């Protein structure tokens, strides 16, 4: 059986029954940041707590990446198999706007303000069989 490994430690809870993105909230000014930071970018405070971010939000802005980025892009794709992908900022109520890849890449189906959920899925498979897992934003059906 293959190993399922998060793309980076500490970005989201994993493994978990109901995985969630992780942010840090400043205990002095209440500002949230993603990914978890050791200090607060807003007030310079160093007293922060890690918390799970909401799993749903609204799309604040978006684009579709139509060409394949150079390294360090690492999706396992080749220029021949590359598929354009959506990118956007999802506004998570009470939290922060998080940037991520969208599961939708059709510009006709994307618009500012649409509701989306955070999902976790295989991003690429390593030569040793490990499945690298990342987070994605998916339109609510």
């Amino acid at each position, binding site marked *: 059986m293959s190993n399922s490994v998060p793309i980076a430690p500490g970005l989201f809870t994993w493994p978990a029954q109901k995985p969630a993105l992780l942010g840090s909230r400043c205990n002095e000014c209440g500002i949230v940041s993603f990914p978890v930071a050791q200090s607060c970018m807003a007030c310079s405070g160093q007293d922060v707590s890690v918390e799970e971010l909401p799993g749903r939000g609204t799309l604040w802005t978006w684009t579709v990446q139509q060409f394949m980025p150079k390294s*360090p892009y690492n999706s396992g794709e080749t220029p021949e198999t590359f598929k354009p992908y959506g990118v956007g900022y999802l506004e998570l109520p009470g939290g*922060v706007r998080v940037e991520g890849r969208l599961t939708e890449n059709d510009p006709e189906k994307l618009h*500012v303000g649409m509701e989306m959920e955070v999902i976790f899925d295989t991003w690429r498979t390593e030569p040793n069989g490990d499945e690298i897992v990342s987070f994605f934003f998916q339109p609510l059906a």
Partner: protein
Amino acid sequence: MDVAIIGIGIHPFGRTPARSGLQQGAYAARLALKDAGVEWRDIEFAFGGSASAGNADALGNELGLTGIPFINVANGCATGGSSLMTAYNAIRSGAYDIGLVAGFDKHDRGAFNADPEAMGLGRWYGELGLMMTTQFFAMKIQRYMHDYSISADTLARVAEKAFINGSLNPNAWRRTPVALEEIAGSMMVNNPLTKYMFCSPSEGGVALVLCRADKAKNYCAKPVYLKSAVLKSRRYGSFEVFAPSQALQQVDGPTVDASRAAFELAGVGPKDIHVAQLQDTESGAEVMHMAENGFCEHGEQERLIQSGATRIGGSMPINTDGGCLANGEPIGASGLRQVYENVLQLRGEAGAHQVPGNPRLGYTHVYGAPGISAVTILQR
């Protein structure tokens, strides 16, 4: 102590396989020295930078080793603006009478390739394909179009104007006008921006000779005075490039902050400016930077651009040398190119791209990753 620009030099932008980036910088520096009527050995300090073409202080190997303090500057797209601001303050402080600022570069083809770890971000950010300046600009204008009803046609018109102005500028890279329909219909790169709406990394060099204002007339019949040179970085809450998250509450970005500070320092306002060079790494940036620099209200750009106000003969000429869109972006040289263009304009020496009416005040603005902005105001 006020500061004057008494010499300017440029190496044509574009692709010059026969010359290294450093040699293009030296070419520009020699022209700037000649323009000021001084020798390299007269220069008391030099600040400069390049992102991909080596250390600027290697210009000493080309121009001669004279023992002066030469400081290498690396500040992304605001490298030139940072060198200039530092030189401005060095002369204002009284420490030096005359100095040189230089910027040059030579980039590979294709989009810039930023290193997430150098920006304090995790490698995952680049692996997922989020470390792209083009995406940021596309997402910023996407939201802006939603909020302020800017049309896709207006984005195409910005690029159309850039190539028209480039065709009038012998030092520009893109010197052929491109039809509006071709711009709008070209390959989509990052929605809503097409291929012709983005600038490309390129090559080129620019140098400026600066001196104490009270000595300017000893060198130059038409000195141009640097009324302000301001650099600002982002505050928490501004919407910036290379940000895995953004604040829920947005605040003004570094462009707004730098612009306000520069106008205050110069004692003039946006309505006093006769010609402006605003960072246009893509069409949407020029649109947004018009308002961020105080030249119009948010949303007014639609009417202004559609009516031709930003063309060379218009009421608010912007990017009269073709901007980044027609010149490409050699990072180290790009911000200084804007200043070079404004000096030409204020001297009345811009030839086919000269703004009519004898302009007296010029404005430049650059924006760079990860959220810095440099503004200058020049007066003849």
